[in-house]
């Protein structure tokens, strides 16, 4: 291995990029767009959902428990309208003008007070708020149910009554104040680097084959391993640059929290870029033209996107599919980068993932070299 020859390849790849604005845009602007779209789409919580309240509660004297509960509704989530009958309210849910009907029984306050003072003869129906929601979209119905439950709990607490048992989740081991984007941003960065590095190496290498440059290089003193390593270093550097841009965007635009050592995260991403580069070179030997190379893209992107724990943890993936997750290099990269950024873990804790990536890198680079060295 001659380092200066490998470095010549690294410089060549980086110069190629510098001179080609379209490639530069692909590397930096495309992932920025992706993270922005995901950020905007997933950070927006459900807002201003129209619900129809049917309040038959007559109250006790001047006070009405149902009014207190309604006043405790989080009005940023619920947009409250009123109806006189349950059938009218349900009709509005049915025709789509409201997402839920919330019905208070007629002797609600009275029954709750009676029950609280120990009367056991009160019928449960009289103390039950009926929530008839359009549950076809859980993303909307779940927040409605949660909001109503919270309002009920707050109201009861406001009356000075303590629930017999309670849960306090205000302190966190990791990820205090974390939003969903904090969870998936590290994953998106890994997937962007994985996808673009594989794609770029694949296209560059098919280009090296079709333009004849690979022939010229293989007829020169440059060894196949030097070519592979030269490319690996270049794409490692590009991967770090990409993740720096993406992470900055995530912090600036979406206030993603960074707890750990950013440089360690970049190191892991560079390693992932090297793995992807090896894969790209390997795949390039099965494509004769660029158009054929592009066809590999869904195979590279989709499993990594869905099965490496970007949006939901590996534990949520059906057991029979998990082996696929474990053979994806992105699974280890996503886990390691997320642990560093969100939990502040160091190398002492993420080393199993790093070792897995090192093994992938080693195997892929060796295979890429062997495939290049193969002579018909």
């Amino acid at each position: 291995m001659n380092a200066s020859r490998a470095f010549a390849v690294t410089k060549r790849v980086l110069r190629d990029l510098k001179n080609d604005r379209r490639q530069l845009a692909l590397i930096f602007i495309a992932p920025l767009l992706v993270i922005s779209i995901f950020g905007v789409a997933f950070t927006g919580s459900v807002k201003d959902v129209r619900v129809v309240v049917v309040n038959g509660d007559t109250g006790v004297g001047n006070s009405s428990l149902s009014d207190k509960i309604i006043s405790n509704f989080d009005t940023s989530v619920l947009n409250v309208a009123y109806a006189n009958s349950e059938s009218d309210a349900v009709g509005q849910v049915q025709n789509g003008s409201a997402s839920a009907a919330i019905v208070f029984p007629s002797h609600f306050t009275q029954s709750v007070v009676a029950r609280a003072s120990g009367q056991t003869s009160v019928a449960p129906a009289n103390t039950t708020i009926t929530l008839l929601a359009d549950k076809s979209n859980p993303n909307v119905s779940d927040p409605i149910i949660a909001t109503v439950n919270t309002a009920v709990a707050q109201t009861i607490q406001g009356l000075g009554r303590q629930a017999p048992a309670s849960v306090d989740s205000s302190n966190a081991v990791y990820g205090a104040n974390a939003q969903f984007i904090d969870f998936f941003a590290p994953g998106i960065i890994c997937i962007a680097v994985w996808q673009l590095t594989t794609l770029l190496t694949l296209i560059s290498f098919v280009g090296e084959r079709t333009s004849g440059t690979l022939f010229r290089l293989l007829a020169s003193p440059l060894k196949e391993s030097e070519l592979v390593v030269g490319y690996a270093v270049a794409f490692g550097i590009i991967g770090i640059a990409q993740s720096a841009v993406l992470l900055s965007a995530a912090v600036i635009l979406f206030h993603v929290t960074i707890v750990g050592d950013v440089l360690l995260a970049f190191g892991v991403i560079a390693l992932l870029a090297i793995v992807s580069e090896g894969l790209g070179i390997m795949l390039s030997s099965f494509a004769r033209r660029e158009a054929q190379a592009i066809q590999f893209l869904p195979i590279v992107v989709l499993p990594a996107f869905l099965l490496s724990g970007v949006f939901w943890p590996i534990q949520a993936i059906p057991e029979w599919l998990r082996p696929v997750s474990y053979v994806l290099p992105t699974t280890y990269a996503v886990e390691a980068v997320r642990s560093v950024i969100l939990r502040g873990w160091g190398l002492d804790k993420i080393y199993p993932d790093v070792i897995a990536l090192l093994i992938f890198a080693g195997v892929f680079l060796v295979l890429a070299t062997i495939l290049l060295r193969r002579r018909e």
Partner: protein
Amino acid sequence: MKDDVCIRNLEKDFNGFKAVNNLSLRVKHGEIYGLLGPNGAGKTTAIRILCGLLRPSSGEAYVLGTKVPDPGVAQNIGYMPQELALYRNLTVHENLAFYGEVFGLSKRQIETREQALLKLVDLETSKNLLVDELSGGMQHRISLACTLLHEPQVLFLDEPTVGVDPDLRASFWRYFEELRDAGITMLITTHYMDEARHCDRIGFMRGGRLIAEGSARELLELTHTDSLEGAFLVYSRTEGLQ
């Protein structure tokens, strides 16, 4: 005089198709050897074997006395593939510098030789242009400059004049003759029969075989024709009859 290139009973089989069939030939030191034949005659395959890019199915090939493929030969050979083999997103200078570095040249060596070569191919003013911005003919000249940069002893030029206009073809052959006079050995493939008269010796290839060999004058005399194309057709017909 010793042979810089020597091929003995070379065969190359691609899934049952014999691209090169029992080919034997020698190229002497300081000679221009023209390998002539139609497309698909096996010229490129033979050159790729000599450059170590393909493994022969049987037979032997030697370059500068070393049996190929052998990584040790690479430093002393220059290979110009048909496809031009340039990085289109790099400038002329960046291409030359890259190939120079791959061949282990120092920055200073690259600079001096680059200057001389760009003068030779008459592209001194295009040094900082992207290859993509150059005309086809200019790209051919740069490809040749990249091949010559490390001052190889043996040159393998695969169809160096395809798609090159007549003026440039004439100047290419002038370079080749100059290089030969400087002691460089050349194996050039072409299907332009006419320009092969510049070669010291010519081998006609057809269907992977060498069907005739000699100087242009010998081939013309033996076939009683007045053009190499005519001579090739005569040999091609006789070969067909056999």
